[in-house]
C-alpha cells in the first residue's frame, strides 16, 4: 500500500512539474525516477529485483533486442532501451539530412513543381507534412516546413498562418500512421511487439482516410484567407532555386541513400527480423561514418534532454506498473464500460485525445500501455485494436491546443518569431474542430473494421 501511495504521489508530482515547466522536463523525470527507486522500490517494496527489472539493462544484451527470429513479443517492463536507441539513431540521421539542406530542398522542389501557386502549395505542403512525419519526428518536419512557408509567404504575399496550422495538424496525423512517426507509437510498438507494417496497415489506413477529410476541412476554412492576399504578379526570379538550398552535394546524395535505406529497413523489419534498435544503430552509424568530418557536430545536436526524459519516465511508469496501480485504473475503465468493447474504445480514444490536448502525450501513452494490456487480458478484447485506438487518440488529440504536441509549439514559435503571433483562441478555433472530426472518424473506422 505504501509503495502504491509513493508511486501515485511521484507520478502526479511529475505531471505537475512537467506542465508548469518550473524545471526542465528531463530533470523532472530523472529526479522522479530516482525518487521512485528510493521510495517505491526501496522503502515501499524492499525489492532490489524491481529496481533491476525497471532499469532493464539486461534487455540490451539479449539477442531479441537486436534481432528477432520468430514472432515479435514486445519488451518487458521498465526502461524501453529499444525506443531510446531508435530515437537516438533517427535523431542523428535527421541532423545529417538537415545539415546538407535536404528538407529545404524538398520544400522548394515541391513549391516549384506546383508553380508557386498558393492553393496547390497549401495542399501539397499538407501532404508533404503528413508523409515526412511518417518517418521523421514532427518537430523537424514543422521546423523546416514552417520556415519555408513563411519565406514563400513573404515572396508570394499570402498569410502563412493557415498553412502553418494545416501543416502542424498533418504532421501530427502523419505521425500516427507509422510506428516511427510519433514517440507514443514507438513506445506502443516496442512495448507490445508490433511491427512497422502492423502500424501502416492499421493506423496508417485510418490516417489515410482522415487525411482526405482534413484536406477538405482546411481547404474549406482557409481558402478565402489564402487567396485574399496572394499576389498575382510574382517575380519568380527572386525565389530561391531548390538546388541552391543544398549545402553539400555529396553529403546530400549520401543522406538521401541513408534515408531510403532507413525506410526500407523499417518497412521490412518484420520480415528481416531486425529490431528498431538495430535500425536506429545502423542509420546512426551510417550517418556518422559518411559524415565523419561533422560527426561531433551531429552528435552534439542530438536532443539528449528528450532521451533522458524518456529514461526517467519509463522508471516512474515502471513504479506504477510494479505496484499494480495501473491494473486498478484498467479495472476502473473496465467497470465504467461494463465490459462493452465499443464503450471501452470510446473511453480510450476520447480520454487519450483530451488528455493529450493538454499534457504531454508521451507519459500519457506510456501510462496507458499497461492499462490496455490489463483490459485486454481481463475482458478478452483484442490488444492490437486497443493499441491502435490508443495510438490514434494520443497522436491526434495533441493537435487540439497549442500545447498538445511538440509540432504545435515549434510551428507557433516559428510563425511568431516572424510577427505572426498565434493566440490560443485563434489556434483552437481552427484546430479543435479538425481534431474532434478526426478522432470521431478514427473511432468509427475502428468500430467498422474491428467489431
Amino acid at each position, binding site marked *: 500500500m505504501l509503495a502504491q501511495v509513493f508511486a501515485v504521489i511521484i507520478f502526479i508530482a511529475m505531471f505537475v512539474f512537467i*506542465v*508548469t*515547466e*518550473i524545471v526542465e522536463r528531463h530533470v523532472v523525470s530523472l529526479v522522479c525516477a530516482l525518487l521512485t527507486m528510493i521510495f517505491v522500490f526501496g522503502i515501499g517494496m524492499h525489492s532490489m529485483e524491481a529496481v533491476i527489472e525497471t532499469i532493464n539493462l539486461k534487455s540490451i544484451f539479449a539477442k531479441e533486442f537486436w534481432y528477432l527470429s520468430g514472432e515479435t513479443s514486445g519488451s518487458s517492463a521498465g526502461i524501453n532501451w529499444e525506443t531510446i536507441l531508435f530515437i537516438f539513431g533517427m535523431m542523428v540521421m535527421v541532423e545529417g539530412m538537415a545539415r546538407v539542406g535536404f528538407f529545404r530542398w524538398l520544400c522548394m522542389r515541391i513549391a516549384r513543381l506546383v508553380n508557386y501557386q498558393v492553393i496547390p502549395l497549401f495542399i501539397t505542403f499538407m501532404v508533404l507534412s503528413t508523409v515526412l512525419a511518417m518517418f521523421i519526428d514532427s*518537430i523537424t518536419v514543422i521546423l523546416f516546413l514552417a520556415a519555408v512557408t513563411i519565406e514563400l509567404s513573404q515572396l508570394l504575399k499570402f498569410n502563412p498562418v493557415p498553412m502553418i496550422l494545416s501543416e502542424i495538424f498533418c504532421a501530427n496525423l502523419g505521425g500516427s500512421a507509422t510506428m516511427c512517426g510519433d514517440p507514443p507509437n514507438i513506445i506502443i510498438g516496442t512495448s507490445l511487439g508490433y511491427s512497422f507494417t502492423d502500424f501502416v496497415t492499421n493506423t496508417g489506413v485510418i490516417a489515410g482516410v482522415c487525411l482526405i477529410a482534413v484536406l477538405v476541412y482546411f481547404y474549406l476554412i482557409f481558402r478565402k484567407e489564402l487567396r485574399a492576399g496572394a499576389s498575382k504578379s510574382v517575380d519568380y526570379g527572386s525565389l530561391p532555386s531548390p538546388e541552391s538550398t543544398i549545402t553539400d552535394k555529396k553529403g546530400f546524395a549520401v543522406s538521401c541513400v541513408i534515408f531510403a535505406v532507413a525506410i526500407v529497413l523499417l518497412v521490412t523489419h518484420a520480415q528481416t527480423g531486425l529490431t528498431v534498435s538495430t535500425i536506429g544503430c545502423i542509420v546512426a552509424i551510417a550517418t556518422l561514418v559518411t559524415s565523419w568530418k561533422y560527426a561531433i557536430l551531429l552528435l552534439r545536436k542530438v*536532443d539528449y*534532454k528528450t532521451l533522458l526524459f524518456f529514461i526517467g519516465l519509463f522508471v516512474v511508469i515502471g513504479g506504477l506498473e510494479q505496484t499494480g496501480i495501473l491494473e486498478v485504473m484498467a479495472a476502473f475503465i473496465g467497470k465504467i464500460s461494463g465490459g462493452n468493447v465499443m464503450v471501452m474504445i470510446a473511453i480510450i480514444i476520447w480520454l487519450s485525445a483530451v488528455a493529450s490536448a493538454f499534457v504531454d502525450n508521451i507519459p500519457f501513452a506510456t501510462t496507458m500501455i499497461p492499462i490496455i494490456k490489463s483490459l485486454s487480458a481481463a475482458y478478452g478484447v483484442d490488444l492490437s485494436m486497443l493499441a491502435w485506438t490508443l495510438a490514434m487518440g494520443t497522436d491526434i488529440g495533441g493537435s487540439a491546443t*497549442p*500545447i498538445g504536441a*511538440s509540432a*504545435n*509549439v*515549434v510551428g*507557433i*514559435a*516559428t510563425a*511568431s*518569431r*516572424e*510577427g*505572426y*503571433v*498565434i*493566440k*490560443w483562441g485563434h489556434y483552437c478555433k481552427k484546430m479543435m474542430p479538425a481534431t474532434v472530426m478526426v478522432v470521431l472518424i478514427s473511432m468509427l473506422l475502428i468500430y467498422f473494421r474491428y467489431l
Partner: protein
Amino acid sequence: MEKQLIISVGREYGSGGHEIAEKLSGHYGIQLFDHNLLDEIAAKKNLNMEHLKGLDERRKNPLSSRTVRGYSSSPEENLLYLQFDFLRDKADSGESFVIVGRCSETILKQYDSLISIFVLGDRDKKIERIMRLYQLTESQAVRKIREKDMKRRRYHNSFCDRKWGDSRNYDISLNSSKLGIDGTVELLTDYIDRRR
C-alpha cells in the same frame, strides 16, 4: 557619424521613468521605443498587430504554454522575442534610441553603447503623481502602483536572470523623487555625456 547611444530605462510605476525617457529622447534627438514598439514592428513587417497589444510586457502563463527545444507556444513570450529581435537589429544597425522596459538592460547588455538606467521613487511621491495623473483616490493609486509593479517584476524576472530593480543590473539606479523629473534628467544627461 555620431557615436551610437542606446539608453535603456527601467522604472517603478509612478516614478516618472517614462517621462524621463521621453525627455532623454528629446534631449539627444533619438527615437523612443515604449508601447509604440509593436507599431514599429508591425510597420516594418507590414502586419497588423493591434490585437497583440494586450500581451505586451506580460509574463507567460506557465499553465497555458509549453516549451520544446527552446521554442515556446506562449504568445507573450513570442511577442517578447519578436521585440528582442527588433531591438537587436536596431542596435546592430548602429542606430541610437531610448527603450523603456522590455528587459532591454539585459538583452542589449553586450552593446558598448548601452547605458542602462533604473528609475525608482519614494512611495508618497509616486502615489501623489499617480493620483494627480489619473484622478484617483489614494487607495486606488496605491493598488494601481502595487499591481503595475508586480506585473513588471514578474514579467522581467521570468525572462532575465537578474531581478527587476536590482541595482547590480543597471549602470545607474536613482530616485527621481529627490531631484524631480527635470533634475533627474539633468543628472542623467551629465552622466550619459561623461560616458560617451
